[in-house]
């Protein structure tokens, strides 16, 4: 329209000439930040991100995000102690998200589809990995992704370490184990099975022959229980028991098995013995509720008919027709760090019971003496190293968790990659503090109970070594993924764009941009963000 024709009373300009951005003291900033589950995750997995892909139905993308930090999602989805779920913000609204079952859902989909890994372009450097358990395989995988040649020494005849020789198949099906290991060896690894590294001198020699060495020999020396004669015929080593074929396991055990210990290994021994038809009693120093095994393992063991005597210490065992043990009730005081504790006997509480076999499963120590000359008396840790040698997994830590070992293998590999192949791409860690519950706008997260992971019927469980925990049905998995708050991760919901009273947010594809000319810095976009993916930052001109 011809402006000259307008009455001078008419407005003829829009308000867009007013730069209201000058009112502002703070500016919203889009920055994905770490979720509490990531903070608790032993492999620092981008959990909120991959669950977002599950929500969207893109399991391949979810699997790729998972495998940035862990090549074993189907394994971890079965046996991880999932500290992520303990940390989950959703617990403050209703119940934690079933992260572990979702990880298994993604991992199983990858195995079913036959998705594989690709090695990076070769970089002409090589690393010796000693030990083919979770830490060693995790490191080997990360190194191959970066194009670093790997020679892997494993003393046993098969890869997997504790995952193969310690965890029974009713918790981790063997085809899953084989499938996830085969995917790593397919990346091109010089495998030396049945080839142990004897001592510090051999280790030094390997360090000379390679550009770096990663030592992950685990912890294989059983801790000894005072008051028990390990030479007696009725005492069976727990590691030897778990690794033996079923027929041998039967031969090793009498009708009533007493398992000593309250950790995962003790539960594995007890539940294996139940599957052999044995009567099983577990005796632990720790009182009920403080056993170091996962709660679900304890519950399933009890369901399967394992009897528990908690807060008790073995004093003496006497062989004969049957074995008679004497024990005493104790007060248990946990120590500063995991694995440390003190006990005091309760006077007059001695008792005795009879059994046929005793299987102590109270943990294992690393054989540090073997490497002492190279790595020093106080033991190796990740980040501390002797020349080209780094260590990880149970040999370098008291955390006896498979996923912790996987995380240590990854960290050591990334240190090695940064040193030997500095231009290889490495995922950057998310900056900033963990996103707390207060930053989640729960108006956008209606209450919905956690999906229960199905388990095999009790009647079937004791008949075989088939898996107890069953997969989530696809629809249940998608619904469970919907429950995730996506803490600290932009879900492109447009709330920030739509709630801005100043039209100061531009939609990009993907993402958003703030128009600094108009943003008044009110923070409504931050308050209405369902996931805490935006925060206000002081805006200094």
């Amino acid at each position: 329209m011809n402006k000259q024709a307008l009455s001078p009373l008419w407005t003829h300009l829009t308000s867009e000439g007013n730069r209201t951005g000058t009112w502002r003291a703070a500016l919203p900033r889009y920055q994905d930040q770490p979720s509490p589950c990531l903070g608790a995750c032993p492999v620092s997995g981008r959990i909120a991100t991959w669950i977002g892909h599950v929500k969207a139905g893109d399991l391949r993308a979810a699997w790729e995000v998972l495998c940035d930090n862990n090549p074993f999602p189907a394994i971890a989805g079965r046996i991880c102690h999932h500290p992520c779920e303990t940390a989950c913000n959703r617990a403050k609204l209703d119940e934690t998200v079933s992260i572990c079952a979702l990880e298994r859902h993604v991992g199983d989909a990858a195995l079913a589809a036959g998705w594989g890994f690709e090695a990076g372009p070769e970089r002409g450097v090589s690393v010796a990995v000693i030990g083919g358990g979770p830490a060693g395989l995790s490191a080997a995988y990360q190194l191959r992704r970066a194009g670093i040649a790997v020679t892997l020494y494993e003393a046993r005849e098969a890869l997997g370490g504790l995952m193969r020789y310690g965890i029974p198949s009713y918790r981790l099906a063997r085809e899953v184990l084989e499938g996830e290991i085969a995917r790593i060896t397919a990346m091109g690894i010089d495998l030396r099975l049945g080839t142990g590294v004897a001592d510090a001198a051999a280790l030094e020699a390997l360090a000379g022959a390679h550009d770096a060495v990663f030592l992950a020999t685990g912890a294989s020396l059983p801790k000894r229980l005072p008051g028990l004669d390990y030479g007696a015929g009725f005492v069976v080593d727990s590691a030897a028991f778990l690794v033996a074929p079923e027929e041998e396991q039967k031969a090793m055990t009498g009708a009533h098995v007493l398992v000593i210990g309250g950790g995962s290994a003790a539960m594995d021994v007890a539940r294996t013995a139940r599957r052999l038809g044995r009567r099983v009693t577990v005796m632990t120093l720790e009182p009920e509720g403080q056993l170091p095994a996962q709660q679900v393992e304890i519950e399933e063991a009890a369901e399967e008919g394992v009897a528990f005597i908690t807060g008790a210490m073995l004093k003496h065992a006497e062989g004969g027709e049957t074995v008679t043990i004497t024990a005493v009730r104790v007060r248990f005081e946990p120590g500063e760090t995991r694995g440390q504790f003190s006990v005091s006997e309760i006077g007059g509480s001695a008792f005795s019971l009879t059994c046929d076999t005793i299987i102590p499963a109270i943990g294992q120590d690393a054989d540090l003496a073997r490497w002492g000359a190279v790595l020093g008396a106080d033991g190796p840790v990740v980040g501390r190293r002797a020349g080209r040698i780094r260590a990880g997994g149970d040999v370098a830590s008291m955390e006896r968790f498979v996923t912790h070992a996987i995380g240590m293998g990854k960290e050591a590999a990334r240190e090695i990659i940064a040193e030997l192949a500095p231009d290889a791409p490495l995922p950057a860690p998310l900056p900033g503090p963990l996103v707390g519950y207060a930053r989640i706008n729960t108006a956008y997260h209606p209450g919905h109970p956690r999906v229960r992971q199905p388990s095999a019927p009790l009647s079937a469980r004791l008949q075989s070594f088939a898996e107890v925990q069953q997969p989530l049905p696809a629809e249940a998995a998608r619904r469970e993924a919907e429950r995730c708050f996506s803490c600290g991760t932009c879900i492109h919901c447009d709330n920030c764009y739509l709630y801005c009273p100043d039209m100061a947010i531009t939609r990009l594809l993907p993402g958003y941009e703030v128009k600094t000319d108009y943003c008044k810095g009110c923070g409504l976009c931050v308050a209405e963000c369902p996931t805490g993916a935006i925060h206000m930052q002081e805006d200094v001109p």
Partner: protein
Amino acid sequence: MDISRYEDHGQFCSGHAACGGCVEALTMRVILNEIGPDAVGVVAPSCTAVILGGYPTSSARIPFIHGLIETAAAMGTGVKRGLAAQGKGDTTVVCFAGDGGTYDIGIQALSSAAERNEDILYVCFDNEGYMNTGGQKSSSTPHGAATGSTPLGKATVKKNLIEIMVAHRIPYIATASPSHLADLAAKVRKARAIRGMKVLIVVIPCLPGWGVADDSAVRVARLAVESGVFPLMEVENGTTWRIASEQTRPIDAYLASQKRYRHLSDGEREALQAEVDAGFARLKALEAINPG
């Protein structure tokens, strides 16, 4: 859960003069974009007029006439009839006013227009007081709320404009909230398609007037809906009632979210809760005997 999606067509412009975080501007954005370009607006003196204006600029893409505070409905009547006389009867006429210009000063013109069933969409931005002039009480100020002129809390209850309008038997009355933007957009869309008088009352938690943090007005509005203080509802033809929101929480969090209620004693808070409960129960009863 409200899915906040609505379409933005650029009908409301950046650079307006609303306080940072003002949800009156937010609801104007949704309403103007839903109405679209074929519309003429009139506005009574109010925060809305300030946000729209600043001569010679305007934050709205449609023309607005700024009139006197008692005249929003009368201006709307004249504009609509003038357009109809020119054969532009399909053009939407929208009246914007605050609660002062609606519940108090403009009620004569509003009642007359309603009685004549004028074809206008009348939007009341209800911030429960004269917030533009420093925060005095209006007849929309709720019981117990402190304002500049009721520093110890208002002694009487909020005027029930909904039932006043229901008594006029107009085609459409609805309430809306900036916490439920998709619902607001849907109600504007529905109102536009109805011939005759439409009244939309939008709750606007006022940042300085209610004592609300800059980033919290949407949250406060959501609490108003969820606690049953400001139910989302529609009444058609005075006879068909629909109460769409549920009372899902006590009023404590709503009261605690604003400074204007912080002088209340425990007993006064309990009395307010009882009032809100009775009001909500009354609405549900009215819905039950006037079902949709």
